[in-house]
């Protein structure tokens, strides 16, 4: 069965892309082998301590804690984008592997399909 890589590149708030992307990832992992790669401002989705109380929107970031339980195979982020944003993996809600360009290329190559959000 086809494997699917989800690529998340949008910041968590300001649009619903990130939230609906997570919904799709959770659904995908119920059907087949899925992994996720966070790139660009998508890395901000993983920041711990997010609060949407003042935004009036749903704090969907809590859903990332379920990725392991849903059997999401690999959870990865772009190392250059991590560095560029002054983040480190300790800032994240969940454990994430950081990949250089070659690592990201290999991850994409290892999957049959890529869905971008």
């Amino acid at each position, binding site marked *: 069965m086809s494997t699917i890589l989800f690529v998340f590149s949008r910041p968590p708030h300001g649009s619903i892309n990130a939230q609906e992307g997570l919904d799709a990832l959770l659904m995908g992992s119920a059907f*087949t082998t899925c992994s996720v790669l966070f790139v660009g401002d998508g890395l901000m989705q993983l920041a711990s301590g997010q609060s949407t109380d003042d935004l009036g929107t749903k704090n969907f970031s809590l859903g990332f804690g379920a990725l392991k339980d849903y059997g999401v195979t690999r959870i990865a982020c772009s190392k250059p984008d991590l560095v560029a944003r002054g983040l480190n993996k300790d800032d994240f809600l969940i454990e994430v592997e950081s990949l250089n360009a070659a690592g990201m290329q290999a991850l994409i190559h290892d999957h049959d399909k890529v*869905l971008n959000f």
Partner: protein
Amino acid sequence: MNFAIVVHGAPYSSEACLSALKFAKAVLASGHSINRVFFYHDGVHTANNQIAPPQDEAPVSEQWQEFGVGNNIELIACIASCLRRGILDETEADRYEKSGSNLAPGFTISGLGQLIDASINADRVVTFGV
């Protein structure tokens, strides 16, 4: 080759919706097939039968309907995205006690599983708009 097509952009707000339609037509014209078109995010606005564009602008939603019905290709609008954006078929309008339904003919409201199923079974997935 069998394609799954995913549309994330709303008609008139985004070029994605019309680009996807042109691509879909080109896929068939080239002798390939399409297993499903899945409308997600703002793409579900394409399924709104209440859109009334100016006469000198393309009737994008109707063009999609003609394409789907004419070629017997499923046009699926994500139910979660639809409900948030007020795209309702009669069943959902009744369920949520809304005043009316507005799902355009040729479109079907269904779940995200249809996106995953289409992605798994297609040779290629092409997404328009992010």
